[in-house]
């Protein structure tokens, strides 16, 4: 079942089309990556999903029903890229304030705050002012106030910016934990290695349009160049390398990068070396990283846009 479905969403501003006919759907419990270069329309998209702005056309379905910002907003947690807290407010008061604005009673909010502050080991900061905290610490408070009301849909825009590796890991673990317990997560970032690590599904947008949509594994398969990395115990002489199964793309110190020919199987490559009595020490298919797919696709759509 899909927690969120966008159908032909459009948002036009005077000078440009920020979001131009985008559709996709997000299954419950998935970690969904929303990718795109700066100015692609991600923030506009997220603001529509969070009910901050309204689409010019198209529909948003939340939990199978038409999205009603007024009521559904309490089931959504949004941590925008541009985020901040009241500098002069105490950490505890700030968390309480944001929790109550999400519809929690003071009592509930108190319990959740205790739970999360304990979990993140920040109980001792409760009476500190936000401005006394480091940026990373503020980020933790911000994260807590985003998830405190147990949203069905959690939207995180660059959640790791400003965090050290330890705290990044802490938040990342928390994201997995939440996903496991059924929270759907939209994750927007520029850091592609994190996307591969965290997301199971991505959408790539550029210039207001959807470029790609699918599971991360599937996308890497779809864009693969049929390349393999093979390491050998001893390098063969060039005469031994003649074959119709693959072409050598690159020679390494202890092996090759090869491209497999259309009708050949991976075992054909291995058989070739075995046949010549050469020991294979390592063999793996080279799949494109999301980073490579991203750059390639963005370039293509930019070119198309330039031609049109």
């Amino acid at each position, binding site marked *: 079942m899909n927690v969120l479905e966008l159908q032909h969403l459009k948002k036009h501003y*005077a000078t440009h089309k920020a979001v131009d006919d985008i559709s996709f759907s997000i299954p419950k419990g998935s970690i969904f990556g929303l990718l795109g270069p700066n100015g692609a329309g991600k923030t506009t998209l997220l603001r529509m999903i969070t009910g901050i702005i309204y689409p010019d056309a198209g529909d948003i379905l939340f939990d199978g029903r038409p999205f009603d910002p007024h009521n559904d907003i309490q089931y959504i947690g949004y941590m925008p890229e541009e985020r901040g807290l009241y500098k002069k407010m105490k950490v505890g008061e700030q968390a309480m304030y944001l929790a109550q604005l999400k519809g929690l009673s003071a009592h509930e909010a108190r319990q959740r705050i205790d739970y999360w502050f304990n979990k993140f080991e920040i109980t001792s900061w409760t009476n500190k002012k936000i401005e006394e905290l480091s940026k990373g610490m503020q980020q933790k408070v911000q994260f807590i106030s985003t998830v405190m009301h147990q949203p069905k849909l959690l939207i995180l825009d660059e959640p790791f910016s400003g965090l050290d590796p330890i705290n990044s890991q802490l938040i990342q673990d928390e994201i997995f934990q939440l996903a496991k317990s059924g929270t759907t997560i939209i994750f927007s970032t520029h850091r592609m290695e994190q996307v591969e690590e965290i997301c199971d599904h991505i959408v790539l947008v550029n210039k207001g349009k959807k470029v790609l949509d699918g599971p991360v594994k599937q996308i890497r398969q779809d864009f693969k160049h049929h390349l393999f990395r093979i390491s050998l115990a001893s390098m063969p002489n060039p005469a031994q390398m003649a074959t119709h199964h693959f072409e050598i793309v690159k020679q390494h110190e202890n092996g090759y990068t090869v491209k497999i020919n259309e009708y050949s199987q991976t075992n054909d490559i291995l058989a070739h070396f075995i046949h010549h009595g050469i020991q294979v020490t390592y063999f793996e298919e080279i799949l494109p990283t999301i980073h490579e797919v991203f750059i390639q696709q963005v370039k293509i759509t930019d070119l198309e846009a330039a031609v049109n």
Partner: protein
Amino acid sequence: MNKIWIIIKREYLTRVRKKSFIVTTLLLPVLFAAMVILPGLLINSDNNEKIAVIDESGYFAGKLPDEKGIQYKFVDAKLDTFKKTYRDQGYTGLLHIPKLDINRLPAIVYYSKGQMPFTLRGSMEKRLESVVEDKRMELAGVDKSKLEEIRADISIDNLAGDDERKGSTVAAYIIGWFAGFLIYIVLLVFGMMVMRGVMEEKTNRIAEVMVSSVKPFQLMMGKIVGIAGVGLTQFLIWVGLLVGIYTLLLPLILGTDMSAASVATQPGMTAATKDMAQKIASFTGSVNWFSIVSLFLFYFLGGYLFYAALFAAVGSLVNEDPNDAQSLTFPITLPVIVAMVIMIQAVVNPTSQLAVWGSIIPFTSPVVMMARIPYGVPGTVPLWQLGLSMFSLIAGFLVTTWVAAKIYRTGILMYGKKVTLGEVGKWIFRKS
């Protein structure tokens, strides 16, 4: 609990709990009192002139008595030499009256180190004139005492309205000035407070987090109402202090309670305190405090709401650059300042065209109307004017709030770009 109520509570509590709020609330009345009392004390103590007089005419000897802060001393000396030494002998100035024909006065010269003080010139000229006038009367054969009898001294008692209340123009003037000025300060101070609050939310990127929980309009109104609460609290504390001083402290100082009847009959008071008490009693008795205070509250809130929304809109347009704030607030502060200028006229001339229209148009009405009200409702301010003024202020603040909400909604989420007035205009007329 309603979200807007949560916002109001935060905006109110964070401000009221601040030390600066408590300090200004308690200190401002003291400063104000000092502002009123100090100049009075200074004027009375300032002059300390010791003036040497060389009177070659002989008309003035013994006719220039000392007065407060001015001492005349006749010296018998030559001008040429004395002019060089009078300062060494402890005189602050030297007045030289040459030989003169009483009907054709020559120039009289005053020598001093610096410029002659304004008040000294006035009082010295008056003294000299009266001596000359007396002399001329004597020469013309006019009996001075007869003339004194002829002279009349008239003071008008003003009974205003159908109930012929004894009004006090002075009281109305002072209260009008004070109330108008207070509203002027309120509009600027609390308007700026709203603006700074909005700017804080925008530049610290809090707005973006907030609008995913509440509507921008709730955020804006919560702030405006919360700060209105802060202003009201401050005002009520001041009223409380004033009433406290009036009912507890004054009787303690003057040794009597303040109702006019008891002032008149109280035995055993010195003439001075009796006079003082009577003055205060007639001052406070001459105006309708209930209507002034309740209308003050109305214009205080109405004017604040009218302008606060505009200040919020401006705050939402400002980016990091504080210069932006200055140039953007100018169009809003200008009418407030204009209101102040009209108010200064209105408090002298409460029924002039300028005062009447200034007190009806909502941009200026809160300040200007408060200057007119102490002169009497419905006497000086007819009920239709008051009604029209109140109605247009309410309508006005609904319009400014509506306009401001449109600007605010877009403005708080706009970063980096400097917006032009043209764009802002488009936001106002754009549908959501």
